[in-house]
Structures are given as C-alpha cells and as structure tokens.
C-alpha cells in the first residue's frame, strides 16, 4: 500500500475540479502499466469517490487494464481498412511468433498483444503499433523483424 502513496491525485492538472477520476486512472496506468486493486483503493481514499464508481469507470473504458501487461505493448489494428487488407493474417503472425493469444502477455512479461479498433493510419494498412511506434504496409512475414527489434532490454527500448 505504501507504494501507492506516491500518487498524489490532488496535484493533478485537474486538481480541485470534478472529473478527476479518469485522469487519475490514466496516471496510475501510465506509471504502473495497469490499475491494481490497491491503486483503486488509494484513489478512493484520496478523492472520496465510491469504490464501485471507480471500478465501474475502470471497466467501462477499453484503455484501462486491471491486470499487469508486458513491457512492450503490441497493438494490432483491426480498423476497416486494415480488415480488408489482411489484419487477420497479421494478428495470426504476431500470435504465432509470440505464442500467446490476443489480450495475453508472454511469460517473460516482454510483450502483450492487444487488438484495437483503428489507429488512424488507414492508408498504410495493415498497421501495428508497438508502444508508440507505428509500422505500416505490413505483411505477415514482416512481423518477426519488427518484433525482434524490441527484444532488447526494456530500458534500452524506452531510450
């Protein structure tokens, strides 16, 4: 519990204002990668927002994850343009390469796969996004090469 004290939600940009809940959850997720049970309780203690409401909001939005994820987030776009350009094959290739399914994390906690609705790079379809980097015009065979570049230590990647 002590670890969660570091979040001082009152100091957020929206301090003193209503509507603080979503930015708080976003902050927790940005720093810890997911929303833990403890951080939900901590938000409740600092803001007074009922636990049920926090849980309700955290489960409503697809951005929030209640379980830890890998260091590298792989988002496979399944927008319309990607769908008609073979996104299914890309998903299959990512899943085959990492040997996990959609929404799962590799045992070494390096990768998580997530299917997303649209990354907005439709003319480069099919597209995947690894962390904040976008890769377009992919073929299933390219997936390996892209993912291999993230195999380094997470600290190096973030640089």
């Amino acid at each position, binding site marked *: 519990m002590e670890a969660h004290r570091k979040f001082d939600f009152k100091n957020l*940009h*929206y301090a003193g204002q*209503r*509507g*603080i*809940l*979503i*930015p708080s*959850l*976003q902050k927790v997720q940005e720093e810890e990668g997911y929303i833990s049970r403890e951080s939900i309780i901590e938000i409740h203690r600092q803001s007074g*927002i009922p636990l049920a*409401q926090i849980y*309700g*909001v955290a489960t*409503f*939005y*697809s*951005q*929030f994850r209640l379980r830890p994820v890998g260091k590298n987030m792989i*988002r496979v776009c*399944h*927008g*319309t*343009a*990607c*769908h*008609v*350009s073979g996104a299914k094959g890309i998903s299959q290739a990512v899943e085959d390469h990492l040997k996990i399914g959609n929404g799962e994390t590799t045992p070494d906690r390096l990768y998580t796969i997530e299917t*997303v*609705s*649209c*990354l*907005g*790079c*439709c*003319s*480069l*379809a099919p*597209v995947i996004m690894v962390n*904040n*980097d*976008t*890769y*377009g*015009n992919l073929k299933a065979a390219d997936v390996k090469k892209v993912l291999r570049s993230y195999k380094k230590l997470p600290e190096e990647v973030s640089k």
Partner: protein
Amino acid sequence: MRILVGLGTCGIAAGAEATFRALREKAEAAGVPVRVEKTGCLGMCYREPLVEVQDDGGIHYRYGHLTSDKVDRLLEEHVRGGRPVAEWVVWSNNGIGTEKAFLERQHRIVLRNCGLIDPERIEQYIEAGGYKAFTETLERNDPDAVIQIMTESGLRGRGGAGFLTGMKWRFTRLAPGAKKFIICNADEGDPGAFMDRSVLESDPHSVLEGMAIAGFAIGAADGYIYVRAEYPKAIERLNIAIAQAEERGFLGGNILGRGFSFNVKLKEGAGAFVCGEETALIASIEGKRGMPRVRPPFPASKGLWECPTSINNVETFANVPWILTHGAEAFNSLGTANSKGTKVFAMAGKVRRGGLVEVPMGISIKEIVFGICGGIKDDKRFKTVQIGGPSGGFIPAELQETIIDYESITKTGAIMGSGGLVVMDETTCIVDVVRFFLEFTQRESCGKCTFCRIGTKRMLEVLTRITEGDGREGDIELLEQLALLVKNNSLCGLGQSAPNPVLTTLRYFRGEYEAHISNKKCPAHHCQKLLTYTISDVCNGCTVCGKACPSDAITGDKKVKHVIDQSKCIQCDECYRHCKFGAVVRD
C-alpha cells in the same frame, strides 16, 4: 534553400524520422547551406515519406517515397548540384511530377497549412495568417457578428450529423447561464477516418484558434479538447501548441488586453467509441462512464456540469478562422444548395492513392475515387465505397455518380459521417465486412439500451453464421427485422445507426447474402468456410502444395497432377498461397 519533411504519424510509420535525421546530419556534415524543417501531413499518405525541397527561386519540388537511403543522392544532385531528381518528384509548382491529379483537383481550406508549416512552431502559423481572425474578432468585439458570419457561411458540423454550426453557437450563446463551455470533439473513433488526427498533428493552432473564436462568440471562458489516447503524436503537438499560444497571449486571461479570457485543457479519451456521441463525451469528461443520456435537454442548454456547452468537431473548428478571414461568401460559394464549403475525406482501402483529400461539396464519388485517387489498386473491379464507418453505409459502384452532400448521401441510406471513405474491390466480401462492423458496434455498445445491447449481438450472430456457411432461410428477414428494431429503439447515434451497414447492403448487395445462405458460396472468394479448393490441369506435380497442407488432404506423385480430398480439406488456403503456378482453384 529549405527542405520540409512530413512528420505525421503516417510519415513516421513509413520512415520519415530516419529521413529527417539523415537529411539534417548529412547536410550539416557536408556544410550544405540548407534548412531542414519538420512539417505535418501532406495528405499523400501513399507516397510517404514525403520531402519538399524549396529552392531559392521559389520552386517547390515534392519528393515521394524518400527513404533515408535516398538522402545522399538528393543532397548531391538537387541541393548541391541544383538538378532536381526528376524520377522521384511527385509534384512541383512548375508542373513536373506524377501526382498532379491528386493535388490539383483539391480545394484546401481545412488542410490549408497541413504539410506546409511546422506544427510545433507557432510563428509559422502566424506567418501563414494564423490568429489574425481571432485578433480581429476581439478588436471588433461583436460576438453576434461572428455567429452571423458563421450562420451565413452555411458551415455544418463535420462530425457527422451536419447541424449548422452558427445555429449551435447561437443556441449556446442565448442559453441562460453564467458559465459556458466549448468542447472540441477529437474522439475520432470511426475506423477508417483519420482526418482529425492529421489536422491535429499538422495544424493544431487552427483548431485552437477556432475554439477561441467560438469561446468568444458564445461567451465561454473554458474549452476542452477530448482527444483519443490512441493518437499520441496529436496529443504531444496539441500540448506544445497550447503552451505556445498561452505564452504568446492567445490563450489565457485577458487575451491581447481585450478583457476576454479563454483556457483550453486537453482530456485524453480512454477508448470508448460511444464517447463520440456528445452526451456520452460530456459524461466522460465529468469522470463517469461514457453513457449517453436522453436529449433534450441538448448540451447547448445543459451540457458539461449542467452548463450550456457547444460541442464541435476538429474539422469544424479548423474551418472557422478561414471563414472569418475570407468571409462567409467565399465559403458558401463552394458546394451545393444545402452543403457548403469543402469536406476532407480519408481515403483508404483498395484505392491507388490513399490519403487525405479535401474537395468542394458536390463532387461525385466517381471523381474522388477515379479522378483524384487514381482508381482501384491492381486493376481490380470497383465494388463499393463504405462511407461513415460503422454508422454509415455502402454505396455501390452503380451509384458512383452520387454527389457528396449531406442530403444525397443520406438518400443512399448511408451518412456523411466524419468522412472516412474505404474503397472496396471485387475481392471484398460484403457480408464479412458488415459482420466486422457489427462486431465493432456490438463491442462498443455501452449497454444502456436493450435493443442496442442485445440486438447488435443477435445481428452479429446471424451474420457470423452466414459467413461460416451456416446461414438459414429467413436470416435475411430476421436481420431486417432486428435492424429496424435496433434503429428505432436506441437512444443515441451508436444504436440508431449501427444497423446502417446491414440495411444498405441488404438494399444493394442482397444477392451476395443469398449466395452465402442458399448456395453456400462466397462470390468474393473471401469466406473461407464457403470455399472449395480443387487442383486444375495446370498442375505440374511439384509437390509444394502437398507439403504445405496441414491436414494431409492433398495427394499425388511427383510430376503428376495432385488431388485434394474434400473430406479432409479444412479450407486453410495454404495450398492456394503456396502454388506458384496458379493451379489451385478456389470457388
């Protein structure tokens, strides 16, 4: 000499950052007197990375596919030698290049600065005439006049519904209440639409200026931009733009000494398509689950925190400064009787030139797809264009003369929506794409209205079984019935429009549904469970297909025609993909 590198998300994904770095480093190392600068999206996504070289004589050469390995030659021949590399030029203002058709039929108002200025430097926006409209608005100090000009311009909301912007502002201005809000809806959730992302990444100040003008017109001191978290580059540049505008005194308290205050805050959306709906978006900013509520009261009278609120889309705001600078007439002289100005379309799918095009309203679909975007990739047959995302519909090739305006599009059963156009060819299975949309709306339904929550689920089940070969007689009628129920009994736009893809395709592509259900065939050869694989006489017995087959369904000796055992075939497509001689036939 000046070199611009397009660094929007599309450009970066195509390697523009490496090009940018290489240009800077190599130009500096070689001591070439050239400024290498960033810019946003030029709209020609299909030719990224894009680089523009502007020589001192005022001639601009735009290069396409300029990856970092081409930098040396560009610097050597063009920058040092003064000889443009003609074979890479896609456009120039002295008439060379291969892509004239794409650019020259466009009319750029919203995209006026995109790809021309550095979005991270406010001085370039100001140099291009930015913040002039806002400054003059404050000097004239007449909010009603602003609303009058907006109304006369005929600008309608570019987010989809097409409500008159001036009217919305007037309602919000007249609504009683001391505190009012402006919200910019940048929750561009329609799969297939990316014009808002591009505007935010390439010209964020035009949106901020539009918001500030709106704030002045309706009497709001606070504005929110609700932007998708999936757009990190847009968020980064918006933050930079807001800080710069504050520093220059275009945002903040007592702006330009005129007594008007306006602050803009960024709210990151947390990933819910329904939040594109205005009441759901407001709930989300308030920190609640993004669920829509009954209207009226409309946000114009009771919006954010129960205060009068005007919610407008990114593209709408980007139009505002231009209209005030050029006058209502310059805007309403473009377009059709009821749809004025221009519209930005995000072109994607099976089209040769995918990217952003801004065209005057009233242009035909055919003109956009074939005239501007060069027609269908790989010379395939044009089948349909999907407009408006999951809320929109399919306009078939037979109706390609349909013109782009709110009413004409609505007549086809589709909606203008935010302006994503996904072009599909003969290899696209209509039933499968509709299933894809229903999967989306079903997942994104917030669950409040029973018909939307359960109806979309049932429709998805029916569509799924049709694509898997288990379609039943009566399924089409069942889909129609469900579609109407969901449409008529949902509170918000998501539910009301979720059946549109089903309804428009049943109108134009009914035969394709029937082929799936009655003949168990997919005319587009896409739905795998409906395919039969056979090997034709072209087969020379190379044995590759047999080795690729995971279910040992293919037998045959070397140099002898192979045979597929239909009882073992699992329609995995491996043999079709592995055969180098086109001997495997799918039907």
